């Protein structure tokens, strides 16, 4: 693995600068914030150690205090409202008691951080090379800007950015998400930091990119002896890379141990619950084998959405490039793919929130694609839609009951009837009728999404479009919402079109799965068949990149994954050529017509 390369710490002090013992030793760390409603204990007596070259994963759900923990170590928990207690020894210095000036010298140079969203974590108005150079020069004032830029290019190349010498001049928006995160990693390591705090470093990325970034971190650990604190909510990510795992709940570490212990013999019920939530539901409905003629609820034929390019030289973009699919009543079709593949466009197009350029959308025989605008409202009554973020998709100024009543009246119900029906809708999604008088901010995330589902099902539409319905929810809540969706389908017999990037969700709900790539469906098959024996190389790659618990992954898949991570250039291992050349124009391998409806 490129062993002749000098270690990344070349211009920092030598690797073994301190005596034995942990590199980072955190004891009884507590952070509380004073709020209007009294003090909130975000971190409550957390202790852990991090050895050289070790990867410690801190796992917890949102609000468990795991991010606050990392921020506090960086000295980024600011403001007069925060009270910090405890001790965090790093290279013999206490980070908690250190002054801002002392911390500033450590920050970025010895202890570095990578954040969740590389898009918002880079300043949009500066070139990425300049942003890396800025950090180098902040700690090494004698280095010229030109030298720092040179070094930035080297670093970017080392974290796997091709043509790094050109890309130092790129602005963040000109790079893909994975490239941006690589820039963040290059920046974090630009001065030979010993410890990398990675706060959900792959959460905002696609699965295949996530696998690459994790492989990169692993490689840095092996080659440069980097120690990593990986903060994440995703056990799948952890299983791959962590040596030790600490599970956090409500500010406390409830369980801590080696990765094997935690993953295979979890002792604390909370840990067990989290792990359990990751395994696919045992309760899979037996899928009937349906003929094409039965799939009459929804028929999409050769749907196209093109955006004309601006300017004479710009080529147009095909967001959807001839998509065909069909759906039977009571059936669930999942659409999977990476961001930008057109899956959300397809879903919105079916509801005609986006105008199709060409093609037909037949909902119970009526063509939605060519219906005049005046008829859209009545046609849309037959479909409901659940959105990704329930917080953003519920009107914050309207009570839950009001929201539901409005949805019901939009489907043609009278005032009194809709009031009665709103209570019933709430009961159907497992909420008390008293919730009707509450505002969305008074509900938890899971409850909000239940309201979103109740709204979508108002008036019992035949078709429900689900756009990432659980991806903004914590793992322990997801399970409940997924089960609810399954139950409701059983009761009402409506068809679901589900868009998701998460295979656990897909596996639990889908009868059939369509894999989308660059605006096309590259494979469409029965869920079991597609997951067990994917035909198209892209599907295989997507499945291989998907982080899972070892216990869930079948052995052949696991082997694939190992090669992906250990190989120097993992892409040469996959069936695709290197560096962005995706075989978009290659003819697709023909899957059996039985399962491929395109």
């Amino acid at each position, binding site marked *: 693995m490129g062993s002749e390369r000098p270690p990344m710490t070349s211009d920092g002090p030598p690797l073994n600068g301190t005596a034995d013992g942990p590199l980072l030793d955190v004891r009884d760390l507590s952070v509380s914030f004073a709020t209007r409603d009294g003090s909130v204990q975000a971190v409550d007596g957390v202790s852990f150690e991090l050895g050289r070259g070790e990867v410690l994963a801190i796992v917890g759900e949102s609000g468990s205090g795991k991010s606050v923990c990392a921020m506090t170590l960086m000295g980024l928990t600011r403001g007069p409202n925060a009270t910090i207690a405890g001790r965090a020894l790093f290279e013999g210095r206490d980070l908690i008691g250190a002054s801002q000036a002392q911390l*500033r010298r450590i920050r970025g140079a010895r202890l570095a951080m990578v954040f969740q969203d590389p898009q918002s974590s880079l300043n949009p108005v500066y070139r990425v090379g300049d942003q890396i150079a800025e950090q180098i020069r902040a700690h090494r004032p004698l280095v010229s800007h030109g030298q720092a830029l040179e070094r930035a290019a080297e670093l970017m190349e080392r974290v796997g950015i091709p043509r790094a010498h050109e890309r130092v001049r790129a602005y963040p928006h000109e790079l893909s998400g994975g490239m941006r995160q690589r820039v963040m990693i290059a920046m974090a390591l630009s001065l030979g930091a010993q410890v990398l705090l990675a706060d959900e470093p792959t959460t905002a990325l696609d699965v295949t990119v996530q696998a690459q970034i994790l492989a990169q971190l692993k490689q840095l650990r092996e080659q440069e002896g980097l120690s990593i604190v990986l903060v994440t909510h995703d056990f799948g990510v952890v299983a791959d890379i962590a040596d030790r795992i600490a599970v956090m709940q409500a500010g406390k570490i409830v369980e801590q141990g080696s990765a094997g212990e935690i993953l295979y013999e979890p002792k604390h019920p909370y840990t067990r619950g989290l792990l359990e939530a990751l395994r696919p539901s045992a309760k899979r409905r037996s899928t009937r084998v349906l003929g094409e003629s039965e799939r009459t609820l929804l028929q999409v034929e050769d749907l196209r959405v093109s955006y004309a390019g601006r300017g004479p030289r710009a080529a147009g973009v095909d967001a959807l490039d001839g998509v065909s699919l069909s759906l039977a009543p009571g059936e669930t079709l999942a659409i999977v793919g990476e*961001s*930008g593949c057109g899956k959300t466009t397809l879903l919105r197009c079916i509801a005609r929130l986006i105008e199709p350029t060409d093609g037909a959308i037949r909902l119970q025989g009526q063509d939605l694609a060519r219906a005049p605008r005046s008829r859209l409202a009545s046609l849309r009554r037959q479909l409901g839609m659940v959105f990704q973020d329930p917080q953003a998709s519920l009107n914050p100024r309207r009570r839950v009951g009001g929201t539901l009543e409005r949805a019901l009246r939009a489907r043609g119900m009278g005032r009194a009837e809709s009031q009665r029906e709103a209570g019933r809708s709430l009961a159907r999604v497992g909420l008390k009728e008293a919730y009707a008088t509450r505002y969305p901010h008074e509900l938890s995330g899971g409850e909000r999404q239940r309201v979103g589902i109740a709204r979508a099902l108002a008036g019992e539409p035949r078709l429900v479009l689900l756009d990432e319905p659980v991806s903004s929810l914590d793992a322990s809540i997801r399970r409940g919402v997924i089960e609810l969706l399954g139950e409701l389908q059983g009761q009402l017999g409506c068809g679901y079109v589900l868009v998701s990037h998460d295979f656990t969700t897909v596996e639990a709900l889908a009868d059939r799965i369509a894999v989308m790539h660059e605006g096309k469906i590259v494979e469409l098959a029965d869920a079991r068949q597609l997951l067990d024996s994917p035909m198209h190389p892209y599907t295989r790659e997507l499945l291989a990149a998907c982080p899972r618990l070892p216990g869930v992954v079948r052995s052949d898949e696991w082997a694939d994954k190992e090669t992906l991570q250990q190989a120097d250039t993992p892409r040469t291992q996959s069936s695709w050529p290197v560096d962005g050349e995706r075989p978009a124009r290659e003819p697709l391998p023909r899957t059996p017509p039985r399962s491929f409806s395109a």
Partner: protein
Amino acid sequence: MEASSAPISSLGGGLSAGPDGPGVSIGAAGSPGRPISAAPGRHAWLVRFIARRLASLVAVLFAITVLTFLIFQAIPDGDPALRMAGRLASPQQVQQVRVQWGFDKPIYVQYLKTMEKVLDGSVISYSQQINVEQEIVRDLPPTISLAIGAGIIWLAFGVLFGLLSAVYAGRFLDRALSVIALTGISMPVFFLGAIMLYWLGYKWGLLPLGGYVPLTSDPWGWFTHMLMPWIALSIVSIGVYSRVLRANVLDVMGEDYVRTARAKGLSERRVLIRHVLRNSLMGIVTLWGLDFAWVIGGGAILVESVFNLGGVGQYAAQSIGRLDVPPVMVITMLVACAVVVLSAIVDVVYALLDPRVRLS
């Protein structure tokens, strides 16, 4: 995604350097029209950007002149022939004036005639029968002096107070500045001007009592004469700008990239100036361009009148009083043109500040 020129093996012995999702990764997208490193094409975007803006400028200016012309046609009791012929004119005399000035022609002919006059500088005012454009050119220096000086003052102090307010948000300095800003915003210019004239000019004799001295003939005199108008005009804007900037700065301070900047170990001053302030200035630039254009086009009528600067605004005020259509129309067109030109300049500055704007 067709061409990828550099083979990956040439780049460092094989780190994982695969394609990275379907995002717009530069080289891989193979768009030759968007240079990143090539030096010759570096400012090509700027030329294209300005060319596009100029093209739309012409169209907008045409639309503005048509609209302005039509608005002045629709003014009630605005029949220019009646007005010009005098109060005791007979219908025949009115008709004679109408024919003589071309008011009997179809409206598009009148528009073209008017525009012809506007363009060759021969618009004559109805009431005094003097050349409007010569009058405006004579009145421009005080107005431009006012706009530039006041523009600099309100921008500088607005940014300074806004930044201080945001940095000390919630503390005494912030509260004090916000009281001052609100006082400034709610202070009418005619009141403030009168107070200043009385104390600074009349009682203490520190500054001259209004009027305008050309910069070329007496720079110090120009400065002392402009000082009070500048301050009077700036006070309101300083209040508004500092409030807007304070809000922007507080927003930007919550951005992830500011957190990144701190995590890099930058000094707080550098974080503030390089990362927070630059990104906070975007909204201010737009605001400033429009306000500046408004003053250039004679918008500061009150200040010009209170201090008797004899600028475009004062001329507009007098013409409106006489319901003298030609000067008012020409000044309206001037304001509109100033706004359009300035907002084009603002767009260019905006693109310089934010590279993301350059794409569209």
